[in-house]
């Protein structure tokens, strides 16, 4: 059984113009020790999937439904208090986008890392801080940094602190939302190496959210490509990179510049769709070179399996077009 199974997840936000369908019928699963990447453009709903799982919903939620099974428990059925005490941070934790602002500026970083230990496990403060020092070592920070304040750390260091914080309670799964997008490239590489070694040493299951498919390929075992609130392709990293099936994925890969070779990167024409009023039928059809003008425009293609565990949401593969 997979550690995490998401079925039919929907998250709509309330706005003046109407509900934003940020997550619209998303299915995926993550095995123990596996890293799933969620890749897509800004605004495609990847961060919304993350907050749906850890249940940090803003005030203006209109629809929140589906099934999220974690280790067999249906998370949506848990009360807020149960979720807070049993699941949040203990079993699933998160590294947020923008570590710059993830830390409370008036508290020492060591304390912030130790805090979940004190609150959730009733550890006394010195013990917790000692554990925090261990975690700092784990993420490659000097242990006496626990005495520092966030403004005394560089961007890369802050990111490490945030990762240490996420690992404080030994969770089974960590969700990372663009953990390196605010960092410069060299630091990015360091952090990625850290994450890879943590994955190896701790056997962590991770959901890695990014817009950079190349970055995802560095660490992920499985990749889900998201477009306009839906997953359009889901398979192992090799399958997706080497034989992408969905037109959007193909265009995405083609747009990545190569270090070697002379290939001119392509771009995807058109603009990302409005999530309040998405295009009918297949959401990608206005920008898709293979659109047939009829079924693609009218009906939403279902997610189907091609060659075993390679899933695509496209009429090209669901029997009909060719």
């Amino acid at each position, binding site marked *: 059984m997979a550690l995490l199974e998401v079925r039919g997840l929907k998250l709509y936000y309330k706005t003046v113009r109407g509900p934003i369908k940020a997550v619209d019928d998303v299915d995926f699963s993550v095995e123990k020790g596996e890293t799933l990447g969620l890749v897509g453009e800004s605004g495609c709903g990847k961060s919304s999937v993350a907050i749906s799982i850890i249940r*940090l919903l803003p005030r203006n939620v209109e629809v929140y439904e589906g099934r999220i099974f974690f280790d067999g428990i249906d998370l949506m059925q848990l009360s807020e208090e149960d979720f807070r005490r049993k699941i949040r941070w203990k079993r699933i*934790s998160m590294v947020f986008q923008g570590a710059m602002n993830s830390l409370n*500026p008036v508290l020492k970083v060591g304390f912030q890392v130790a*805090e*979940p230990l004190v609150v959730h496990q009733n550890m006394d403060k010195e013990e917790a801080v000692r554990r925090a020092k261990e975690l700092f070592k784990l993420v490659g920070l000097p242990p006496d940094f626990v005495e520092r304040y966030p403004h005394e750390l560089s961007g890369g260091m802050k990111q490490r602190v945030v990762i240490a*914080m996420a690992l404080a309670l030994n969770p089974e799964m960590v969700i990372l939302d663009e953990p390196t997008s605010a960092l410069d490239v060299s630091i990015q590489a360091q952090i990625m190496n850290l994450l890879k070694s943590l994955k190896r040493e701790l056997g962590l299951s991770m959901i890695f959210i990014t817009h950079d498919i190349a970055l995802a390929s560095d660490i992920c075992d499985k990749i889900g490509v998201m477009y306009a609130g839906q997953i359009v392709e889901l398979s192992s990293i090799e399958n997706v990179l080497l034989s992408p099936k969905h037109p959007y994925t193909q265009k995405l890969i083609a747009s990545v510049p190569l270090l070697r070779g002379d290939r001119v990167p392509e771009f995807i024409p058109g603009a990302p769709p409005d999530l309040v009023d998405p295009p009918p039928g297949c959401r990608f059809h206005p920008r898709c070179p293979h659109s047939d003008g009829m079924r693609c425009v009218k009906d939403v293609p279902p997610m189907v399996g091609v060659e075993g565990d390679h899933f695509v949401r496209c009429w090209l593969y669901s029997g009909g077009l060719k």
Partner: protein
Amino acid sequence: MGLGRKLAFKAISLVIVLVAVLFLTVIIIGATGISDKILNGMVQEALRAMRQELAREIKDPEALNRALEKIREDLIKSYGLDRPWYARMPDMIWRIVTLDLGVSRSVTSFSGSNKISDIILERFPNTIFLMVTVLMINFVVSLFVGVRAATRPGSFLDRSISLYSSISYALPTWWLGMLMILVFAFYLRLFPYGGMYSTPPPTDPLMRGLDLAWHLCLPVLTLVIATSGSWIYITRSIVITTAQEDFVTVARAKGLPERLVLWRYVIRAAAPPILTNLMLGLAAYLGGAILTEAVFSWPGMGLLYFEAIMSVDEALILALTYIYTLIYVIIRFVLEVLYIIVDPRVRYT
């Protein structure tokens, strides 16, 4: 190490303010000839005291007058009245700094002394008592009401707060005090018209304390209504902004209970800007306290100011201006220290 230096810098800049005010006031009263008047007053006072003493020893009026004349000349020299005012400045400044504030023409202390420092010393605790009471109430009220409004933006409470704040900004403190007296003392007869104790004050300490509390009600209520508006509004706005910060979401993600998130992440992180705004509103608060004392005849320094203006007592006004500036500078410094304690980001240059 950095902490000490920062504090030292702050202290120095505040001392500069004090010195600037001192210089300014001394120059102004010198140039307008008022310092001559004040010093002459002091000479007269000293002579009067001397006359009484000497009259006991020297019986011959001629000799008495000659002796007094000699003393007068000495006094004039020592006060520098025989020199132009700018030559006297250093002395004057030194005198004020060492709180040798001279003599009041019109007011005497309750113990009968004419010396301004005695008078001010008597009234000073009453003013501080009033101000501190109001400060504490304001603090508590703005914390609870402001935070509550911030956690329910757009609610009835929130909108009422905005309305209340705009009105209390436009409300003159002293007029509000007059209204209070009219309604609660005159019409409803619930509270006294003013003053600190009833006359005669009760002798039993418990009754005395209750009497004080009863007299304290209206002035405190007036000052709280007049000043809490902006405190509450600022607290609310800053808390709303802080609550939207990422680290607050992260705190919730860490599974911390909502109360803890509110206190340790929202309020604690909002404390520095709230404190800054407090410092900005300090001057207005001080002014309000002066006016309230005048309206309620609260025997503090504000009322003294009022009386000094009525009786055109220059020495007293100069002394009070200086003392008030001193108080202001000290409170500012305390707030600055608090700010450094509360916000670790400013501890190092």
